[in-house]
């Protein structure tokens, strides 16, 4: 990560990483009753910055607030960046009321990334996500699909409360499901009219699917789902070294200085958000 980059609007002045860039919302997709995906471009077009799969950015509305969101679009997308945002607080409520053409502020990218060019390369991959937690994994999934020859078989296990709460359903059905060597396993918590897919919680579906351990797992979801999926993976024989996740804690600075996301010797914004579970096990139980 660069410490400071030269400010485009004021040449010669080094812009601090805490100072954001203005971005334009160029598309808004309603994914579910409480999730929207926002497409963001630089005012002059193109992307605000380059990022790696799993990295995050601070999205800010002046006078309303600023918070860290994972960048859900893949770096292989050369035109724009996207954030899938669930309405659950003051800032996200405001973002949901915004329109195409509105200006927001963005700074980043922050944090580490999924090791797509090292540890994940050449591996069979198993993505496991619940609800809005598909957002950080989508960046990795699309990166792998755009570099298909570098990865083996890809399994995507994704579940949510109901069929209406599945994020990126169009892309899942029209793109992911049609890729060779990609198996998508969708599930919803309860029976629903018009749904002929699997019904049940993600951890129990994971057990039913009984994957062999010749793959690397990438797991993200609510804490309770993580707990039981991890238990399931262990029972299947997975080592903690072959399971990755991405953590979420309160953040303000994004650069390991404001102290909020500190757990043990790590700052989740800077040393994470991506951790292997053997690394997570080393942290005090405060996440």
């Amino acid at each position: 990560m660069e410490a400071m980059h030269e400010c485009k609007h004021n040449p010669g002045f080094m812009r601090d990483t805490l100072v954001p860039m203005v971005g334009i919302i160029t598309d808004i997709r309603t994914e579910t009753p409480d999730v929207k995906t926002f497409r963001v471009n630089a005012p002059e077009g193109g992307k605000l910055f380059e990022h790696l799969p799993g990295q995050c950015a601070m999205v800010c509305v002046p006078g309303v607030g600023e918070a860290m969101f994972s960048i859900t679009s893949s770096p292989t997308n050369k035109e724009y960046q996207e954030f899938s945002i669930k309405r659950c607080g003051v800032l996200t409520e405001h973002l949901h009321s915004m329109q195409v053409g509105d200006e927001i502020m963005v700074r980043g990218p922050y944090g580490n990334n999924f090791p797509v060019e090292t540890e994940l390369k050449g591996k069979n991959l198993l993505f496991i996500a619940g609800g809005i937690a598909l957002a950080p994994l989508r960046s990795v999934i699309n990166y792998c699909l755009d570099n298909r020859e570098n990865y083996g078989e890809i399994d995507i296990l994704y579940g949510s409360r109901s069929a209406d709460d599945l994020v990126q359903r169009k892309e899942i059905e029209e793109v992911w499901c049609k890729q060779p060597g990609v198996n998508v396993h969708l599930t919803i918590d309860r029976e629903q009219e018009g749904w002929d897919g699997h019904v049940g919680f993600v951890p129990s579906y994971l057990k039913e699917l009984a994957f062999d351990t010749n793959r690397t797992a990438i797991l993200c979801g609510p804490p309770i789902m993580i707990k039981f999926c991890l238990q399931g993976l262990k029972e299947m024989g997975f080592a903690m070294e072959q399971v990755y996740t991405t953590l979420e804690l309160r953040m303000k600075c994004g650069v390991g200085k404001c102290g909020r996301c500190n757990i043990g010797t790590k700052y989740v914004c800077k040393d994470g958000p991506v951790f292997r579970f053997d690394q997570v096990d080393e942290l005090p139980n405060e996440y």
Partner: protein
Amino acid sequence: MLKIKKSDLAALFARISEKNDLFLPVKTAGKTNFAAWDEAADVDLDTLKTVKSPKDAFFPQSENLYTCNREDGKLKVSPEKLTDEPFVLFGIRACDVRAIDVLDRVFLSEPVDSYYAARREHGIIVSYACNNPETSCFCKVFGIDAAVPAGDVVTWMVGEELYWEAKTEKGEALTAQVRDLLVDADVATVEAAQAAIRSIIEKLPNSNLSLEGWGAEAAKTRFDSPVWEQLYKPCLACGTCTFVCPTCQCYDIKDYNTGNGVQRFRCWDSCMYSDFTMMAHGNNRTSQMQRFRQRFLHKLAYYPANNEGMFSCVGCGRCVDKCPSHLNIVKVIKAFEKEGV
């Protein structure tokens, strides 16, 4: 070694302030804190500890980061101007100088905080040895010598004279500005004063606290200790310890609507507050015990683990003096010394 008569200090301060902003301990309404010097200032070099540490010379309690305005209907971000004028901090004690070293490792590590870095670049530190260490002091525990502080210039008050020694290039440059006010002095006089200071420090009740078991390994060995549960209960979560602490650097970033745009500022915050880690989906430290433990493990285990064993407590004793519940880091260290876990 140089020196100046105490009675000539006003002339020294006037000279320094010709080319630099000068900040030193000033007594206002009975309390001594670092403040800007002017001829009317009640300069107080006798009070050992300013109420607040001088950390806000580099990391202000509140500072603007940038302003957002609308110009021709477009959102415009204007970063705050960085410090670009020299300033002198006169009269900083050894513990507080070490604290700047602690803060440097946070703010000057990548990515560098340019607001802090600009102040560090332009700030000149004139430290001041402690003639009268107090019972709440325990800087010796952290290997700090109050008789010989670090700094760009180090000074000692011996009798009615202030002894002055430049230690860095910045210190030499400042000395050149005031050289005609200083006269050559004898090192032996200062050495005798240093010996006297060290003999007082030896006798202080907390000078020989044991740090055994602290450091990187404590992150694991002491996290689940029952001692935290026994200790934290009187904590009111007022945050006084973090605000008077010279090394606490947690901060918040907030907006202020000026009516003509939005100023984004940062201000000191405290890990002792219940909303510090609160997010829309929950809070990862829900009890005061967890927050209390976080503060001390950060200073005595997490920070040293990331900084070659350097502790982020400097033994200034301000928390010892100011905690309304008489809870402090000395109590924590002693409790673990006794329990050994």
